[in-house]
């Protein structure tokens, strides 16, 4: 084999190597990904305020309803609070970098476990029909406190970065 043939062979091998190790499309795309993903389209702003107010008023208007109805209404109000908390949590997540998101996730997971324990502890009428009302009332109170806290943090984050 003469020198020029060897040189062409070496060139082909080196070129082939670079072709093989050329980054895949996925790898290339990840190089250009932002640090944060936008989770929620900017103009998607679901609101449960009116539903919550309606249920709240219904509960007050039917305060002397039978126990099963009271339990159901109280559960509905607790569910609305929980859904509102979920929305604010997601919005807050969106304002954070990857590390902040991981920290908030862990914090929320701990809080969820604590809420279940605290709501259960608030039940005095164990085994009775009053128990769901006691549970939902405590569940809602704890959830509303957390909702207020996360709303405050979300507002602070938006004050720092109004685009969020």
């Amino acid at each position, binding site marked *: 084999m003469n020198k020029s043939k060897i040189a062409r062979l070496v060139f082909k091998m080196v070129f082939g190597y670079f072709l093989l190790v050329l980054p895949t499309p996925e790898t290339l795309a990840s190089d250009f990904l932002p640090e944060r993903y936008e989770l929620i389209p900017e103009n998607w702003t679901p609101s449960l305020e009116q539903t919550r107010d309606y249920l709240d008023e219904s*509960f007050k208007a039917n*305060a*002397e*309803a*039978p*126990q*099963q*109805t*009271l*339990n*159901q209404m*109280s*559960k509905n109000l*607790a569910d609305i609070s929980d859904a509102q908390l979920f929305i604010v949590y997601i919005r807050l997540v969106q304002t954070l970098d990857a590390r902040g998101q991981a920290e908030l996730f862990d914090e929320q997971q701990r809080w*969820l*476990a604590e*809420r*279940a*324990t605290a*709501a*259960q502890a*608030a*039940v*005095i*009428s*164990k*085994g*009775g*029909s*009053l*128990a*769901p*009302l*006691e*549970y*939902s*009332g*405590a*569940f809602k*109170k704890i959830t509303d406190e957390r909702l207020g806290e996360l709303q405050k943090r979300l507002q602070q984050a938006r004050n720092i970065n109004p685009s969020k």
Partner: protein
Amino acid sequence: MNLSDQQKLICEQIINVFETGSMQGNYAAISIFHDGPNGIRQVTYGRSQTTEYGNLEALIQMYVDSHGIDSEKLRPYLPKIGVTPLVDDQVFQQLLKDAGKNDPVMRKVQDDFFDKLYFQPALKWADGNGFTLPLSALVIYDSFIHSGSIPDFLRKRFAEVPPNKGGDEKNWISEYVDARQNWLATASNAALHPTVYRTQCFKNEISRNNWDLTLLPINAHGVSVSGV
């Protein structure tokens, strides 16, 4: 404690009104609450509301054994109840609703089941503490249904001792009803406040001296109950 059939029926009808708004009760009622183990959601079912992680399996076992209309359809669920969450199983919940609504066997099973779960333990407690009057039975039964028992913390709020310890039965019941009303009316959870309509009914009957439940009808939260 010896209650006539009518006195027992009066107790059941009054409690049904408090729980469901009707004397007959709602045998098909299904609710989903977050009050399962570790706060998970669970199915609550029946006239006096038994839970997926509580006594629902025992109720369905009784129904399956009684060969009701939907017994065979519900049988495969027996090993799952309390083990596999059924809170999102619409077929299971529809079967429960259908049986409660359409099958007299389910209604009879629930009557027997809730009698065993609440009424008999309430009467046993009443007997054990020396109570003999039908209105006492009603107050005690209501407490078992509503709070699961006669809560100790309420007993500590008044001085009268039960009849088996030398106390006066009527005084004990009156003071217990007052303590219970005060607790419900002032609970930190405001949702409990309106439920004093139960204790108010008992206070009315105490005022009428209706200890034998013979002055009829009894006004139970706006519904006239006569035990018929």
